[in-house]
């Protein structure tokens, strides 16, 4: 497709001058054309420079990343009116910069905080009150309609969020998910430019995706400082990302099993998840892989002894994992609950912009490991995964398949010994006037960071997108016309991040 947007490369900086800065109407038209023609939104965000707000979009069209920017009007015709995938992004821009998307079908705050430039609040909130839930929820009217309100504090060891169900009897007509309770203001904290803190902060965006976010930051810095990463470090980082994927998927498969009251896999998976976390612990001293990835490489070697120990543990675990997954999917009482539960159609998934296993379960095969390979992925063959049914079964099936695939990937990478230099220090003189976007496939899907530097090489904007930003509306869609008692099951089939969304 011909477009006014320009192609950029994953992880490579582009001079800002080379990124088209379009008049707003052109920007709007071109962005819509790309996404309506089958493209997806990777980023769409605002940033402030010399007291003016500008917008930047990074879209993906097949295997291309396309970028363009524009000056932000104080108010403009919402893109969402014509093209749903912009929905969350426009709300976020409205909240962060007080820019109003006119005619937005659901203009509601995202995280509940005052905007960054003290502009009049788009939502009419008084932030002196520290209650994000003070808001008129979408309500279904009718004599027999009842509402169920859950959270922010939940009945388990879980992150906070508010769920508002509108039901008729047991049937959910609409679920509204209200987040923001975990908001820590991560993006402004990073643009404080205390680079020492960057690795620690990004590893805390979502602890279960510490490697995913850590890699996005590291690759961005590597791009901006023209830093080479040696082959050994690339392999270690890939192994760590795959361990992260396995641990989370295995844990969630167990949780799903527990939710349908089939306890053996619930317990086995709980224990085996721990065994995978302990392999991350072995690699770097932290069960979540914190402290492993730094710009330029890794902080710990992969010695022959390490490879032997990890391979030995995998040899022992692989059959157990395969057998438990077989047990889960081979049990008819499990299948009876999984099949057809919380289905989202492929078309809805596309409109919502679902990514990762949630998208693949609806027949959208996109996997950044294949499309925008980083690290060692270019050397690996990642199978194309997709299930047609979009239900709990499909989400679980994709995750089970990916666990077994990832175990094979790790095993193959552990086979070749590669020397790696140990990194502690990394350069902080970033390329001036540049934009870099990094994309990785973490276990929940596409995670991406986008950084913009000014003429002095100072980072003026650090934009983060966790896959949960796309996928929470998928969970809401799954609940449409589903029994309310199937909420926990659907919730775990996605297991989305609150803190990754809330930032």
């Amino acid at each position, binding site marked *: 497709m011909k477009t006014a947007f320009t192609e950029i490369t994953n992880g490579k900086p582009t001079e800002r001058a080379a990124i088209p800065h379009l008049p707003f109407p052109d920007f709007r038209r071109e962005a819509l054309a790309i996404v309506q023609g089958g493209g997806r939104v990777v980023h769409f965000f605002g940033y402030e420079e010399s007291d003016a707000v500008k917008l930047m979009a990074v879209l993906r069209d097949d295997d291309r990343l396309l970028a363009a920017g524009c000056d932000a009007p104080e108010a403009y015709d919402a893109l969402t009116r014509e093209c749903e995938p912009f929905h969350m992004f426009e709300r976020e821009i409205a909240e962060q910069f007080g820019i109003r998307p006119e005619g937005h079908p659901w203009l509601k705050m995202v995280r509940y905080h005052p905007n960054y430039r003290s502009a009049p609040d788009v939502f009419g909130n008084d932030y002196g009150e520290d209650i994000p839930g003070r808001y008129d929820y979408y309500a279904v009217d009718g004599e027999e309609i009842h509402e169920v309100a859950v959270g922010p504090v939940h009945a388990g060891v879980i992150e906070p969020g508010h769920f508002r169900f509108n039901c008729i009897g047991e049937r959910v007509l609409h679920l509204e998910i209200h987040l923001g309770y975990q908001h820590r203001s991560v993006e402004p904290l990073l643009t404080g430019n205390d680079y020492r803190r960057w690795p620690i902060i990004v590893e805390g965006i*979502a602890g279960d995706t510490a490697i995913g976010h850590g890699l996005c930051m590291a690759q961005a810095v590597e791009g901006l400082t023209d830093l080479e990463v040696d082959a050994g470090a690339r392999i270690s980082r890939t192994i760590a990302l795959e361990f992260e994927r396995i641990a989370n998927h295995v844990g969630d498969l167990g949780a799903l099993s527990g939710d349908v009251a089939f306890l053996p896999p619930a317990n086995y998976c709980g224990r085996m998840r721990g065994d995978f976390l302990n392999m991350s612990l072995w690699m770097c001293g932290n069960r979540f892989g914190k402290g492993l990835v730094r710009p330029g490489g890794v902080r710990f070697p992969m010695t022959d002894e390490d490879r032997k120990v990890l391979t030995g543990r995998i040899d022992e675990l692989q059959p157990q994992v395969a057998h438990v997954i077989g047990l889960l999917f081979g049990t008819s009482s499990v299948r009876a609950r999984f099949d057809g539960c919380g289905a989202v159609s492929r078309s809805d998934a596309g409109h919502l912009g679902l990514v990762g296993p949630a998208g693949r379960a609806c027949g959208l095969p996109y996997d950044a490991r294949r499309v925008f390979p980083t690290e060692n992925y270019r050397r690996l063959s990642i199978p194309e995964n997709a299930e047609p049914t979009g239900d709990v079964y499909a989400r679980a099936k994709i995750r089970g398949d990916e666990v077994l695939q990832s175990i094979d990937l790790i095993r193959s990478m552990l086979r070749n010994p590669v020397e790696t230099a140990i990194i502690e220090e990394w350069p902080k003189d970033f390329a001036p006037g540049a934009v870099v976007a990094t994309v990785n496939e973490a276990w929940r899907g596409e995670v991406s960071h986008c950084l913009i530097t000014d003429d002095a090489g100072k980072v003026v904007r650090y934009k983060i997108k966790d896959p949960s930003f796309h996928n929470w509306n998928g969970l809401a869609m799954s609940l449409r016309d589903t029994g309310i008692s199937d909420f926990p099951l659907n919730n775990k089939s996605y297991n989305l991040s609150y803190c990754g969304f809330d930032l």
Partner: protein
Amino acid sequence: MLNTLRNRFEQGYRTSAYPKEPIELPARYRGRPVVNPDASGDDAVQCAEACPQAAIDAENRTVDMGRCVFCGYCERLSDGRFVSFTQDFELGTADRTHLITAGDLPDLADHSERHFRKLFGRSLQLRQVSAAGCNACEADLNVLATPFFDLARFGINFVASPRHADGIVVTGPISRNMKTALMETYDATPAPKVVIAVGACAISGGPFYGSPEVSEGLESLLPVDLFIPGCPPHPLTNLHALLTFFK
């Protein structure tokens, strides 16, 4: 059915013998830091300046385990000359100031709130409040319910309602948006109640310190009885602290 039994057999028995028998963590695990009293002033200052968490006091030669995320950077930087990290995971303290250490920790069993033992020693029901961390602290509390740790065998459980709880366990730096919910949960818990802060975030704001959207730690809002440091604390650190404090 046969498949279920076969899996059961393959899985075996997995519960850890800790605390009856000691347990070792892998070599790269970073537990209690020990500061070298003879380290040069230069090493101390260099580490203090480089620490991303501002956890090192060069003058007093201490590390604040309540701020530290155990990244190990300072150890590498000084080649172990200023500080080194031991394998000791038993890190809980009853007092915030005890976390500021040169390496020695008072025996947690000697804490002053002895009545808690009588009240909760046989049965302790806890309500967890997750308040704006990264969810890794929550995850490593959750695993205490898995067969390896099996917290319930000690009479300790996480419960669904603060009304059923003897205390709250707080994780995260307590965002502005979570403060009200946290305080309401605390109020809904019947007295006498305990308050436990788990992780660098809950103790000091953790990686997010300085953000106007988070607190400087739980103690700025509530009286805290037990501090469990780490980012996140290893599950064994949690287990040790709970057992030593209450048993």
